[in-house]
């Protein structure tokens, strides 16, 4: 199959909802706070600050001082900002005229100030002026570095102290962004400090937020993976096998993807539209829990009723038929066909699988037949010739075969014949899916369970 990176299509102006780590959200609910967001260039500081404003429904009660880019560039980079003025749920309940909406958008734009040419005095005047507002505003300084570069450190620290005093007195909030992550001289002056980090693993981007200090808030989890997909900050909560198991009988629903992943084969894998005879190799990194494996498999294979497809199954990596059945629907065990007639030799695995596939196809009147096996099955099937016959059988008689290998037990020959090679791993409690062949970036498997629904989604790590 040809590999091609496809455009993700036209971005919607309103991105998916932001997901701020719960500890940080609790901190932001304080009556007054100062938050320092640290991180090198392109780590997502601006998007986090903007996402916080969105999350807090700050409407027009904020001032965004931009010392790096012009407000028009900010709006161009993040088109959803024009809707910031409309994210007050109470406001949405009232029907608004176009003129009102336009006016609100204008007002919202006015809250973004171009401070690129500001001298320190002018810059601090703007903040002081805003603090004198009676509305307890949220002031975002993006970023501190250009101003800091123009001042002596002592003067800067002194001004910061005064600002903090005024901020507290005004019951306002100050969010300050700083690029110099190694500079900790301001940490003690802020109530909260978070650090954004970005690194590459196997050529794929990973982003992490460290909750270094959040005064008055118990931090249960000090770091989260996050993505900036859609230009909004979205962190991922840790999945728990118990929660996945508990929900499995009722079923997890995979989010309907509004736009493709950008990778044709991955889309086809998730949409169940791969051509008949496709073999997928799924490699599990050490430590990945079987609950997550089954959750992913339910996304690829569906959890349809037995009538819709036949699932031929061979236990693997400690996953038993009843577990697979609970997560994926009825399974048909793959067993070695017994010989008919005395003295005849047992059939080989390839022949047995072929017979089973044909039998199921016939019984289900031509519905899809899919097979789920572990790499041990291939390894133990026999010699090289028998393995080749098995692969041939999979390609000819089975619509989709998934070969799962754990840890180091990947079968070289399975990788060789696979049309799609996936890898499931886990970083910091977040499950990550990637395709090795064709190459894709990381996708976080987001598991959300609330009163209304239990959903699973695939979110690109960008």
């Amino acid at each position, binding site marked *: 199959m040809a590999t091609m990176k496809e455009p993700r299509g036209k971005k919607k102006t309103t991105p998916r909802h932001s997901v701020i780590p719960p500890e940080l959200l609790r901190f932001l609910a304080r009556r007054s706070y100062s938050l320092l967001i640290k991180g090198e260039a392109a780590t997502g500081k601006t998007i986090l600050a903007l996402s916080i404003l969105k999350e807090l429904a700050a409407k027009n009660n904020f001032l965004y001082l931009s010392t790096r880019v012009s407000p028009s560039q900010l709006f161009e980079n993040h088109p959803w900002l024009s809707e910031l003025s409309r994210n007050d749920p109470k406001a949405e309940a009232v029907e608004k005229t176009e003129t009102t909406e336009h006016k609100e958008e204008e007002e919202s734009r006015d809250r973004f100030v171009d401070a690129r040419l500001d001298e320190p*005095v*002018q810059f*601090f*005047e703007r903040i*002081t*002026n805003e*603090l*004198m*507002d*009676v509305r307890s505003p949220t002031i975002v300084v993006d970023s501190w570095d250009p101003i800091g570069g123009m001042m002596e450190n002592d003067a800067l620290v*002194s*001004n910061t102290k*005064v*600002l903090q*005093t*005024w901020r507290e*007195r*005004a019951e306002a909030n100050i969010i300050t962004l700083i690029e110099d992550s190694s500079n900790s001289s301001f940490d003690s002056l802020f109530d909260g400090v978070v650090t954004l980090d970005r690194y590459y693993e196997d050529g794929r981007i990973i982003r992490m937020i460290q909750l270094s200090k959040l005064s008055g808030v118990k931090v249960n989890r000090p770091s989260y993976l996050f993505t900036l997909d859609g230009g909004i900050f979205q962190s991922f909560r840790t999945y728990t096998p118990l929660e996945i198991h508990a929900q499995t009988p009722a079923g997890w629903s995979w989010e309907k993807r509004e736009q493709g992943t950008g990778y044709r084969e991955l889309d086809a894998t998730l949409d169940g539209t791969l051509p008949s005879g496709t073999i997928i190799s799924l490699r599990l990194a050490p430590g990945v829990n079987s609950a997550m494996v089954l959750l992913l498999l339910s996304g690829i294979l569906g959890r349809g009723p037995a009538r819709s497809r036949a699932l031929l199954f061979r236990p693997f990596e400690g996953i038993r038929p009843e577990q697979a059945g609970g997560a994926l629907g009825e399974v048909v065990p793959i067993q070695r066909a017994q010989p008919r007639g005395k003295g005849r030799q047992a059939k080989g695995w390839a022949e047995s699988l072929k017979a089973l596939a044909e039998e199921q196809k016939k019984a289900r009147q031509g519905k899809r037949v899919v097979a789920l096996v572990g790499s041990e099955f291939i390894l133990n099937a026999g010699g090289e010739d028998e393995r080749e016959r098995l692969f041939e059988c999979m390609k000819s008689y089975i619509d989709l075969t998934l070969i799962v290998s754990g840890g180091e037990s990947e079968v070289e020959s399975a990788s060789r014949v696979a049309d799609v090679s996936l890898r499931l791993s886990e970083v910091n409690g977040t499950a990550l899916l990637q395709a090795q062949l064709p190459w894709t970036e990381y996708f976080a498997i987001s598991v959300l369970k609330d009163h209304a629904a239990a959903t699973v989604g695939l979110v690109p790590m960008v």
Partner: protein
Amino acid sequence: MATSVKILIVDDEPDITSSLKMGLERHGFQVDAFNDPRKALAGFRPDVYDMIFLDIRMPQMNGFELYRQLRAKDKDVSIAFLTAFDVYQNEFQKMFPDMKVDKLLRKPIGISELVAYVNSQKPLSKK
């Protein structure tokens, strides 16, 4: 003596300017009041006023900007800020050491307090 002292008040809230103007005039001071800082600036001439009271937070032009422009025209005039926010002089001077602001007056301010302040600044009259 009081009659020769001339005061300029700039605050975007008409209620404040009118009550302060009326109260100060009752005590014999000459007062010009503006709600639009741009108009106050347009008509400003150096060496006319003995004292200026400026609101800080105004929509058309903030008090800091107005202060800068007035100060450029009149280096010596006494300027005080009116603010609804609790700011102490020492904090303010720390933040803005180059700003020559004589007093930060907390709003709402009573006429007697304001008159006492004006009188404490004598000799003021430029005439």
